[in-house]
């Protein structure tokens, strides 16, 4: 019985230490870097946007996936702005103004990205035309 009590005491103590460690007041971390917004609909909007924003330090990861400090700050900023009623599109535009199209994984349509958007369409049409021609020739 006393052994069980001892184990219980150790577990409670260890838990207490873990709590104080994570609540270190000197560790400045954004409130919303690792915490979801209370409003589920806003959180869903923020989450969708965060999946499409590039982490600028790690590059190749989205800010939703990254544990970098700057990604945390960006997540917090996205959540705060969405919570304040800003549209995801405006937040994205704000970041593009500062970092260029590179910051978003959803590239906008302009003359530089036009080949990216149009190439699949052009290839599909060309392939269709080629297939149609071959089939027609074979029938003959």
């Amino acid at each position, binding site marked *: 019985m006393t052994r069980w009590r001892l184990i219980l005491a150790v577990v409670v103590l260890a838990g207490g230490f873990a709590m104080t460690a994570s609540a270190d007041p000197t560790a400045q971390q954004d409130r919303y870097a690792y915490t979801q917004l209370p409003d589920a609909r806003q959180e869903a909007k923020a989450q969708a946007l965060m999946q499409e924003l590039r982490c600028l330090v790690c590059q190749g990861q989205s800010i939703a996936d990254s544990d970098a400090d700057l990604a945390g700050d960006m997540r917090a900023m996205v959540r705060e702005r969405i919570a304040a009623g800003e549209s995801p599109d405006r937040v994205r535009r704000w970041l593009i103004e*500062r970092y260029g199209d590179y910051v978003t994984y959803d590239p906008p349509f302009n003359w530089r990205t036009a080949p990216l958007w149009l190439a699949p369409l052009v290839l599909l049409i060309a392939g269709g035309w080629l297939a149609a021609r071959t089939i027609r020739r074979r029938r003959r």
Partner: protein
Amino acid sequence: MKVRHILLWLPLVLFAVLMIVVATGVIRPNTHAVRSHMTGKPVPAFTLSPMVPGKPGLSTTDFIGHGPRLLNVFGSWCVPCAAEAGELQKLKALGVPVEGVAIRDKPQDVQAFLARYGDPYDRIGDDSRARVQLAMGSSGVPESFLIDGKGRIVLQHIGAIRADDIPGIIAAWKAAQ
């Protein structure tokens, strides 16, 4: 017949071109520095509280009507920032005013950093949540922005300032007068 012969080789040629494109992309070292698109634009509006006691904080108004100055984004926790500290002091000695924005930092850590590596800063703003860094289009530390007397960003320097970067910065600073 002749045209068909050429067309027969076309897929191979296209494949070779694609391979060249991919190979050059693989060989080239991945050093994609994200340049700020704020260069040429006014400094975003911000007010940062003082980072260390005895030194004022930093706000946008400090950059308007006081001549061109350097805004240095740094952190006491950042190793290249320590390497850069000596060069910033050289710039300061040459007459370039240097302002600091400390990212995710603590007063005692910044004080220790300044005591150890020297203090080129007129003011240091406490950007604990990197909001000013994001507003400036900066993606890491250290980074420096040269800002003219009207508060317009004229130059972004990514990474630590080294001895051979000084002439270029001085020239840009003189041009911004």
